[in-house]
């Protein structure tokens, strides 16, 4: 059990301490993927061998956590770009270097692989990895198309190999605590989740040679990326479904290139509305020519609002100040208030001045990535797939690709039933093409 396990890693220890021992049992029910750490005691002396395919910036970021984990050995890397190889070797100097990922997959000394390559290459690599008997951690979005995601998930099931996706918020203490509170009804009926990720930058990487433009800046081109939806939206859409505990049934969207007209093919501003049959809505927007509002997911209930990124929640009804202070305040108002002259005859309904409360009692320190990587290491050692982690990643990918399709077509799209999988948490079951199409 999570409650009794003795942590061997500072991050995990801090993690559970932060959440509170009393809550750990409940968390095992609401966030069952944490069961990845359930055998952390028994595996104290075990090690696993990890290969990293695509050790670019994200790959090296993940390697940094692997290098700190005493249970993981980075035994091999595969890339075709020498600067990435050089950077990765600084983290794992003893790793074997492959130019062809298939040779890494054929290496019997590799137990599991981390795939951090451009989006359009995930499918081939992950399918080959499952076929080669390797456990897989694939960065989000897992596939370039919904069909690819579906096939990858099914191959995970049929191969019996582990499948982790880069949804680090599943391991972020803030989000785990928030979802626990949301599902307990602390914030009342959740009517909307409003997610956005805004930046002010061109999203470009430096290119040493123009011939490498599409190779390095793959995020900007349609043949290799779904743009902001796949690279940023995937994280936040998963927060919406996690909060609602169900999938939307329709989506509409709009996007365009409004500012960064530099030859890119993906939109620099996107907005999608995902609607539920029961009326709730999940919205996602991303603009990369304005960073004022930054990054957030606003989970809005009739009793309160949660903003997990900033680590705070706000109740609608704030406890009034002591009566004595209210009295003093009213005296001040009577003394100093000016009589309005030719002003507006109405007051705009602006947000309340409400400083809120910190979800964990302190400012956020981590985004869960280190724990996600640690969980993968634990799972590779035990060979046990933590509950629901693949499914959460699958549906997160599906939502962003579905939204992207809505933007591209300009239509209101129903949920693609053919890609529903068995997942009790969202109340979905596998689509049966024979029985489900009969009138």
């Amino acid at each position, binding site marked *: 059990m999570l409650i009794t396990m003795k942590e061997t890693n500072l991050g995990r220890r801090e993690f559970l301490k932060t959440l509170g021992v009393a809550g750990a049992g409940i968390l095992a029910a609401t966030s069952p993927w944490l069961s990845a750490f359930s055998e952390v005691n028994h595996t104290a002396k075990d090690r696993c061998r990890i290969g990293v395919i695509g050790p670019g910036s994200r790959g090296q970021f993940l390697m940094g956590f692997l290098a700190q984990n005493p249970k993981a050995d980075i035994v091999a890397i595969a890339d075709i770009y020498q600067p990435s190889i050089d950077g990765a070797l600084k983290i794992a100097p003893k790793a074997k270097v492959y130019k062809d990922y298939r040779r890494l997959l054929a290496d019997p000394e590799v137990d599991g692989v981390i795939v951090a390559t451009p989006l359009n290459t995930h499918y081939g690599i992950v399918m080959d990895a499952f076929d080669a008997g390797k456990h897989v951690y694939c960065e989000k979005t897992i596939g370039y198309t919904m069909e690819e995601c579906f096939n990858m998930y099914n191959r995970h099931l049929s191969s019996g190999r582990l499948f982790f996706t880069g949804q680090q918020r599943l391991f972020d203490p803030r989000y785990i605590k928030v979802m626990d509170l949301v599902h307990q009804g602390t914030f009342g009926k959740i009517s909307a989740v409003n997610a956005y990720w805004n930046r002010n930058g061109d999203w470009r990487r430096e290119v040493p040679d123009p011939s490498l433009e599409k190779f390095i800046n793959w995020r900007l081109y349609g043949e290799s990326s779904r743009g902001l939806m796949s690279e940023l939206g995937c994280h936040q859409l998963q927060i919406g479904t996690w909060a609602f505990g169900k999938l939307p049934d329709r989506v509409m969207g709009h996007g365009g290139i409004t500012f960064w007209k530099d030859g890119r093919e993906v939109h620099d501003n996107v907005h999608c509305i995902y609607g539920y049959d029961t009326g709730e809505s999940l919205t996602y927007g991303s603009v990369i020519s304005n960073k004022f509002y930054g990054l957030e997911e606003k989970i809005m209930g009739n009793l309160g609002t949660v903003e997990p990124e900033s680590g705070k929640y706000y109740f609608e009804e704030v406890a*009034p100040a*002591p*009566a*004595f*202070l*209210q*009295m*003093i305040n009213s005296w001040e108002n009577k003394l100093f208030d000016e009589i309005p002259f030719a002003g507006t005859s109405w007051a705009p309904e602006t947000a309340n001045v409400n400083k809120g409360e910190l979800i964990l009692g302190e400012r956020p320190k981590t985004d869960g990535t280190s724990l996600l990587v640690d969980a993968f290491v634990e799972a590779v050692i035990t060979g046990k797939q933590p509950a629901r982690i693949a499914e959460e990643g699958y549906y997160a990918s599906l939502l962003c690709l579905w939204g992207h399709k809505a933007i591209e077509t300009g239509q209101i799209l129903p949920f693609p039933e053919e890609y529903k999988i068995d997942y009790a948490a969202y109340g979905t079951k596998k689509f049966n093409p024979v029985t489900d199409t009969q009138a």
Partner: protein
Amino acid sequence: MKDIVFTARSQKRELLYLLISFVIAALLNLGAILYYDAPMSEMFTSFFYVLAFTLFLYALTLIPRLLYRLLRKERRKN
């Protein structure tokens, strides 16, 4: 240098002013509790606000009294 003599009588008088200030502040707190429909426990939880307001009221009484004494002193000199 002249000694400042703070007689027992004047001490009692100042304490009386302080007590009156405290009673006024406490009554104002009670009135506010009733007016804003707040819990009576605020009679205790707002004690430090009441205390601060007591000092404020006391200071208010102190200023005119000091001014009065200064003026009286000047008049006697003349």
